[in-house]
């Protein structure tokens, strides 16, 4: 094992060496860094060009210059890696990258996690309802999303989710016909996930439709979109419903212990509504948020533990997820209450289409500042999630279908195991093994950044650094961003192979 890993790492270093060499020379071929100065009419242009040639050693041919670059990088072993200076502004490349990585991570991590969770969930539902109307719709949706160019989606999202939504918020009243139409469509979508006889489906559709229409009418009448909030009652109801739904999926409503464990977790979470509110009003920070989520998780773990005697897994899981969602709803409620002050501060344009945060906004309120970050994040995250969601959906669907046709699934069904257990315990776990490869590659792509998305939404992340570097013929900057993403890509391939062999004992690593 050790020999294998060390051999793979040394090959990886070799690959990195080769690919940085190729990239360096390609980049040097992609334009003349002095072109702009050669054509300028600046009287001092001769001396500027000479200075540039001296600083960036442009008189050395690119293949040889690459080795100077490598020599500076290898300083990492003596404690000072030198990625050089960027052309524009003469800033150390390492500083530019250090600024860009958090931006890119913020943008891509959320989108990747959302895409993985949603893609797997819908993929599983699609697979266990194979050849149903829902399956066909999801299949069509995934093909459609596969075919969407992200730059086109991004521009449309800016218009429809950004500008038009802001316009709607100026007078947030929903027309009665729009309300009925929206409710009907939403009810139709929600009903799609419920199986059963035609009559049952019709009843569920009607009930969902009425509930949604009434909620939308209430929201419209009370100006909820301008002054949103759930209140303790709203948090309690939402969390209880979520908990019941989760129990139904994870343990079945017949499992009374799981149901009660979930509901008690919800009750405990709701009891923290006011203490949490007081605490964060005085000093809001991330530590309190994370602490609250961790506290809820650990408490609901113990609740689940005490409620269960045998087969603790599903009960603890539904309790913990209920606890997690209560804390999410409580935090969400706080954000909603910060919406009104944020709305005034953002000058009536709450959903921002450009940049990472609103520079003109001056406030010390923790919630308003974070709301500002979130509203900037929402459009690019949606665009990225839409695009990568389809891949996870298709992959997990086919993976589940493949596993469901295995003999051990037939055995599990034959011994009388409930279908829920068959799917959650036997099918789901095994079908997720091939997905690790996909996830590993996706994570490797995170730092490389989303060049197009960053460009459309004006984010200054790794992607836009690379883009600028190519346009400006900035070799140091380009190689800085590129070598980091290439390093991650190579390591992800290795990690994917290792994880795969660890999860699937049938695959042995050659010694």
């Amino acid at each position, binding site marked *: 094992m050790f020999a294998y890993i060390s051999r793979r790492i040394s090959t990886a270093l070799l690959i990195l060496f080769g690919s940085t060499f190729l990239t360096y020379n390609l980049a040097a071929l992609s334009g003349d860094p002095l072109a702009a100065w050669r054509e300028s009419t600046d009287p001092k242009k001769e001396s500027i060009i000479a200075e540039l040639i001296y600083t960036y050693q442009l008189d050395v041919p690119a293949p040889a210059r690459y080795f100077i670059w490598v020599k500076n990088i290898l300083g990492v072993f003596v404690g000072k890696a030198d990625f050089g200076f960027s052309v524009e502004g003469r800033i150390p490349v390492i500083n530019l990258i250090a600024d860009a990585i958090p931006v890119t991570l913020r943008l891509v991590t959320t989108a990747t996690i959302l895409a993985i969770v949603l893609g797997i969930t819908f993929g599983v539902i699609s697979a266990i309802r194979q050849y149903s109307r829902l399956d066909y719709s999801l299949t069509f949706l995934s093909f459609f999303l596969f075919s969407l160019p*992200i730059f086109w989606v991004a521009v449309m999202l800016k218009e429809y989710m950004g500008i038009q939504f802001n316009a709607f918020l100026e007078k947030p009243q929903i027309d009665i016909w729009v309300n009925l139409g929206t409710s009907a469509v939403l009810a139709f979508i929600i009903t799609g996930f419920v199986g059963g006889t035609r009559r049952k489906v019709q009843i569920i559709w009607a009930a969902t439709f009425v509930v949604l229409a009434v909620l939308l009418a209430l929201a419209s009448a009370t100006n909820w979109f301008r002054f949103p909030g759930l209140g303790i009652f709203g948090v309690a109801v939402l969390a209880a419903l979520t908990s019941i739904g989760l129990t139904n999926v994870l343990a079945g409503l017949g499992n009374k212990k799981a149901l009660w464990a979930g509901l008690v977790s919800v009750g405990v979470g709701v009891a923290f509504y006011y203490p949490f509110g007081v605490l964060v009003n005085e000093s809001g920070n991330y530590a309190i948020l994370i602490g609250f989520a961790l506290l809820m998780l650990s408490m609901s773990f113990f609740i689940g533990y005490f409620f269960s005697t045998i087969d603790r897994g599903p009960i603890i899981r539904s309790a913990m997820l209920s606890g997690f969602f209560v804390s999410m709803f409580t935090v969400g409620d706080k954000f909603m209450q910060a919406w009104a002050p944020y709305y005034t501060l953002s000058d009536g344009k709450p959903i921002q289409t450009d940049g990472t945060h609103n520079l003109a906004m001056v406030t010390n309120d923790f919630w308003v500042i974070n709301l500002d970050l979130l509203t900037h994040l929402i459009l690019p995250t949606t665009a990225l999630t839409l695009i990568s969601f389809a891949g996870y959906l298709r992959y997990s669907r086919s993976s589940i279908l493949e596993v469901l046709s295995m003999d051990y699934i037939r055995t599990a069904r034959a011994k009388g195991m409930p279908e829920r257990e068959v799917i959650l315990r036997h099918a789901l776990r095994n079908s997720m093994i091939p997905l690790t490869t996909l996830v590993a590659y996706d994570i490797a792509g995170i730092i490389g950044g989303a060049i197009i998305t960053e460009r459309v939404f004006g984010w200054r992340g790794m992607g836009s650094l690379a883009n600028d570097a190519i346009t400006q013929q900035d070799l140091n900057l380009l190689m800085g961003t590129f070598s980091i993403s290439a390093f991650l890509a190579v390591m992800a391939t290795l990690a994917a192979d290792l994880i795969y062999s660890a999860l699937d004992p049938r695959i042995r690593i050659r010694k």
Partner: protein
Amino acid sequence: MAINFRKKKSSAAAENNETGAQGMETLGLSQGQIIRKKFFQHKPAVIGLIFMIFFAIFVYSASGIHLGSGDARFTIKGWWKYSHEDILPPGSCNTGCPTADHPFGQQANGRDYFAQVMRGSEISLMVMVVIGLLGGLLGTVMGSVSGFFGGIVDAVMMRFTDFVITVPSILIGAVIGYKFGNLGVFPLAVFLGIFSWTGLTRLVRGEFLSLREREFVDAARVAGASNRRIIFKHILPNSVGVIIVSTTLLLSGSILLETGLSFLGFGVQAPDVSLGALISINQGAFLYAPWLFWWPGVIIVVIALSINFIGDGLRDAFDPRQRRQIKRKDYLLKTSTRDAVNKR
């Protein structure tokens, strides 16, 4: 979201499924005939195929055929009256709205947008086909060699694949644009194709790795067949499904790659146009002249969607496990006839 885990109608469905591929086999159809029949039963795929054929004919006849560049240029004029290079007086309405004369409207510089979109589609289609075919060919060769010979050959070639994956396509676009920008889009398509075989290689390699362990390969080897014969006569025909399907998916991926690069400005260079470049130019016009933004985008989506559906149809057709999909009415028909039999 309540999920109801109830038993599927799997038993009835499985019974009914047997009428699919196996029924055809008992009819005495050859493998090729079965695949063709199954493909034409897949409605979205057939719609996609017909659309692609008509669309390609429409585009190429409208904008004409352009080969080469510079002095060595060979063109056949299409039936559309304007060329994408014609500078026309600005439209009668100030934002160049669609008229009978300019069905897609006019750009701010007076150019007829229908001619622009047709020329862009022509180039995007051409680039897509070149990338797809070149990537497909290289991927098949690399994957089959790597999977068949295994061992050190496989290890070296897989690490070479890892190496190629790390080369960013945006950089290739930039280099080609700078060095060969005056030669038209063909060099761009070729170089992108040279770097886009990696995914297909992995799939073909996997298929070869599993097929080479099968009995019929051992039988052929015992009978004294050469490596070449085994590859071309025994393994390649069996992996043609994987190759064709993933080449189709490579095609739909490459139109998104090319339009994305052109959107960033590293793909097709002016004076040539591409659907991605058209969107990039006109994204600011979204508010006052939305048709300038909609047409190229819709065309990209429709092309990619049809190709994805064709790929899906091919996958179903080549996969022997995948049988005809069961419709509700088939199920009802089956149960009602069974009931009728039972009553008798």
